[in-house]
């Protein structure tokens, strides 16, 4: 993540434990579902889970394009 940003590629960290993301210095942070399943929720019906995945991905794409001045969390 840091190396990607160093060469000028904006990077989004999709991460469950946001404080760790902040500590390690991510600039664009999208909070995810849970550590064993960051991008989905196996307890939900498939349709609902697909919606969760789509929401997280769109949020990440939005974060990638945002103009930011400091570490920013792109929550719900």
């Amino acid at each position, binding site marked *: 993540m840091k190396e990607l940003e160093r060469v000028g590629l904006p990077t989004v960290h999709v991460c469950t*434990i946001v404080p*760790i993301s902040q*500590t390690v210095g991510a600039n664009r942070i999208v909070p995810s579902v849970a*550590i064993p399943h960051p991008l989905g929720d196996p307890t939900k019906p498939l349709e609902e889970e697909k919606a969760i995945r789509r929401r997280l991905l769109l949020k990440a794409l939005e974060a990638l394009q945002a103009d930011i001045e400091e570490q920013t969390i792109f929550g719900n």
Partner: protein
Amino acid sequence: MRLELHKVKINDIKWGNTTKVEDKVLYINQEEISSLLSKDDRFECVEVDLARPGEKVRIVPVKDVIEPRCKIEGEGDVFPGFIGDVEGTVGEGKTLALTGAAVVTCGKIMGFQEGIIDMSGPGADYTPFSKTNNVVLVFTPRADIERHDYEAACRVAGLKVAHFLATKAKDVSPDEVSLYELEEITKRSKELEKLPKVAYIYMLQSQGLLHDTYVYGVDAKKILPTLIHPNEVFDGAIVSGNCVSACDKNSTYVHQNNPVIEALYKRHGEEINFIGCIITNENVTLEDKKRNSSYTVKLARMLGVDGVIITEEGFGNPDTDLIMNCKKAELAGIKTVLITDEYAGRDGASQSLADASPEANAVVSVGNANPIVKLPPMERVIGFSEYVDIIAGGFSGSLKDDGSIEVELQAITGATNELGFTCFSAETR
């Protein structure tokens, strides 16, 4: 609450015609142990073996270690929710402990998250369980068994045998009796009230996927932080169901002998007023981490403590629970000391914890889990050594043709135990 711990010292372990304790020797009758576990149809078979300090024996892969204990007076029995009933609570009366003996459970549950115990050689220096006389249970599960069921079966089998062994010493007079008594929090003497009030925040591994701890039989991931009397811990109210890295797993044995609680008791009435223990968990969502750290610190504030000691279990995301507990307590005006291990790389130069905060300004490190240790071949291996290559801390080629092993310290059971139940220490002055 008042608990007498009757310690029967075990200096040796031998096979015998009957399971008994005589002249500090624990005699094991293999059939008795086997028949105790034969009713559990989750096992294909259970082998019983013995390992003594100093022998050229390696035990791998180790799941849990348990000290044989049973109640001899007072409500309930040890390991409530598993062995003892949950009608009533433990922590009062008299408990018998076979000190110097341990039950070691051994099975390939996760493969990569069980550990190594060497009874001699350089590896033995790193694990406290090279100094105990071990009854080793090696489990082969039924082929179709699901892993969570296998873990549960191994967990209960270890507790059953530990309890059974202790009951065999009920007629033996103890070598030592330790007394643990803590007055009711609101009814303490003026002298005690003058001392700094200290509580212990006791973090329990609860990530799920076989990283679990049980309190009175309840899965700790489902609890809100709560109070527990230190004596309940000595009676096995907290049981390990964990398959985390071996070095910083809190084995049931370590819970039963929690050195932080021992140390707080020792200073109670002298340097501090030991208020009690708050247990909390290490769950896998940010919401749970926020809720449970807030709730933990709220309990500490309700108790009006001046300071807390916080211990962690495992590493990685639980570092965030540790830091959240610390930060919220410090911001509430409660001083904190943290006990944790480090994953600072083989050269010790990397960031030690996954999370950090300026409020974490008093930390006791129990060691770096990443340095490489070389373990020479042993004459006998109890268990399944083919798992060494994939054990956490191992790598392809860890197990050499001659039976020697090259692994990170994290593969050794209890090497960097975060309750401080470790063999080495160093201090700077």
